[in-house]
């Protein structure tokens, strides 16, 4: 169940209330998000669409604890992240959020295996346990045979699959995807969306995705439109809002 009227019950996994974000550029104040409300339940797959500059990435950054709002609150699984200190927010991010970026953002000097292992270096898992987790994540994205390859030895689609494996390896509460197919050809984009779809349907992951691509967005159960910092409407896609 996804709501944008601010009347959702307390059971939502992600609860956003009166979210405002302003930037100051020179003397100009830019109001990126205005009084935004959102409730997303566990296991939902939500797509945010909208024109460039509408605040989609800003919203994603705020939901992932990468940025702080000007006002309002964000609560994820009972934790109000907008009240957390920077240090606490970092460790919260490590436990609860998996990020997938448009440009994959892999570390070029590390192999696929090492890139996926990165979030696990922050845990107390043993080397053998880390290896098991990484192999499982790479198996989910179908890249066990490429684990020793460096990013430069992989195609764009394969790089994005490694990035997905890195995002899911620590079993986060939810995944945030910022234009995950934006830099890929149609076929690779479909493959990536298939994987994300599977993560929702087979592994029960909660996914919030920002995309310009209608074909990517139509995979989501709910599509929300963001325009000039306001969530305008909630549209039903495959499932129901």
């Amino acid at each position, binding site marked *: 169940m996804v709501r944008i009227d601010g009347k959702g019950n307390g059971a939502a996994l992600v609860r956003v209330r009166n979210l405002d974000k302003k930037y100051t550029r020179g003397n100009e104040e830019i109001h990126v998000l205005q009084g935004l409300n959102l409730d997303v339940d566990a296991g939902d797959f939500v797509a945010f669409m909208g024109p460039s500059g509408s605040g989609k990435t800003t919203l994603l*950054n705020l939901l*992932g604890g*990468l*940025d702080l709002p000007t006002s309002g609150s964000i609560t994820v699984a009972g934790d109000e992240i907008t009240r957390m200190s*920077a*240090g606490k927010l*970092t*460790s919260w*991010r*490590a*436990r609860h959020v998996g*990020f997938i*970026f448009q*440009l994959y*953002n892999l*570390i*070029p*000097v*590390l192999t696929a295996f*090492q890139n996926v292992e*990165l*979030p696990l*270096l*922050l845990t107390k898992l043993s080397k053998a346990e880390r290896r098991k987790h990484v192999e499982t994540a790479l198996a989910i994205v179908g890249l066990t045979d490429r684990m020793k390859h460096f990013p430069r030895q992989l195609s764009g689609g394969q790089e994005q699959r490694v990035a997905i494996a*890195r995002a899911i390896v620590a079993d986060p509460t939810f995944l945030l995807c910022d234009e995950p197919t934006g830099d890929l050809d149609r076929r690779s984009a479909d493959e990536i969306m298939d994987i994300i779809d599977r993560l929702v349907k087979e592994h029960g992951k909660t996914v919030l995705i920002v995309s310009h691509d209608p074909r990517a967005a139509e995979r989501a159960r709910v599509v929300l439109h963001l325009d000039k910092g306001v969530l305008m409407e909630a549209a039903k896609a495959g499932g129901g809002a």
Partner: protein
Amino acid sequence: MKSFRLVWANLRRKKVRTTLTIGSFTVALFLFGLLAAIRMGFRGGADAAGADRLDVINRVSLILPLPLSYRDRLLKVPGIAGVTYATWFGGVYQDERNFFPQFAVDKDTWFDVYADYVVSPEGRDAFMKDRQACMVGRSLAKRFGFKVGDRIPLRGTIWAGSWEFNVAGVYDGSRPEADTSGMFFRDDYLEEQRAFGKGTVGWYVVKLINPDDAVQITKAIDGLFANSPFETLTQTEKAFAASFVKQMGNVELLIMTIGSVVFFTLLLVTGNTMAIAVRERSGELAVLKTVGFSDVRVLRLILAEAILIAGQGGLIGLALAKFVIPGLSRALPMLGALYISPPTFVAGFALALGVGTAAGLLPAIGAMRLKVVDALRRI
């Protein structure tokens, strides 16, 4: 450290740049090793000086003599265990470039007062029996290939004429910093052959029963010869040896200045390199923070890179210096024993790590303060 692989991989990212930065540390620490060894060479006498020995020289100048008769008067000063004396000879062996120090010494007492010079019983015996006998230091013997039984001709510069000596033995130092680049011969040979200055010596060396009495005995000796034609200046052997070094100018200051300039330059060069490296990787650092690496952890990663570069360069540089110094020691025999002591090696390595840390600190703080959102936007 679980993140070591990440640090190591980052160092290998730009191999040429990393190699050049390590190279700059190598050169700096190589230079540090050489300068430290040269400083040690200059200070060798002072550092090896015995705490239980005082040197008594002419108060007017070191080059003016003291009467031989002072020996018996010195022996009567309470707290003195023994007295010996020496005179600078200043002879030339074959060519003036072959400089090495030669001293006429009292055959009966010299090696007793300087027990830290190790002489074989046979050598000592031969030294006692032959008026023209001499003892050569180990490094001097190596330098010119002198061995027991050889005859060494010297051309006198203070006392003119041709002087010949028979090598009775080779002395060693009981400590590595001991200077074994000189030659000792018998004062009675000098006394017999010289045309002037008979009945005088260059300086006395007094051995104390208790080193704690040094101040009191110094005063007693200088008081004993006050208002005489040959007033004395008594000082610890360390101060005496240091005064030799001072005659060559403030070598220590010069060495310290060169060293400081080199390390300051290194700090700027490495700091700049690290700053560039961090700037280039700001996107990746943002990704690390996104997946949960804390600000402090990112700071530690950058510092670890800088320290690893400095440590590798430092070790290579110091090892190279250690390898080269024996050759330098042979090329500069007038400096005595050149070597890098273990504490100097450790100090050099610590200095390299310190400079590495300082150079990495600003870029590391920059990385620590990096805002994820801003950095991701720049990718």
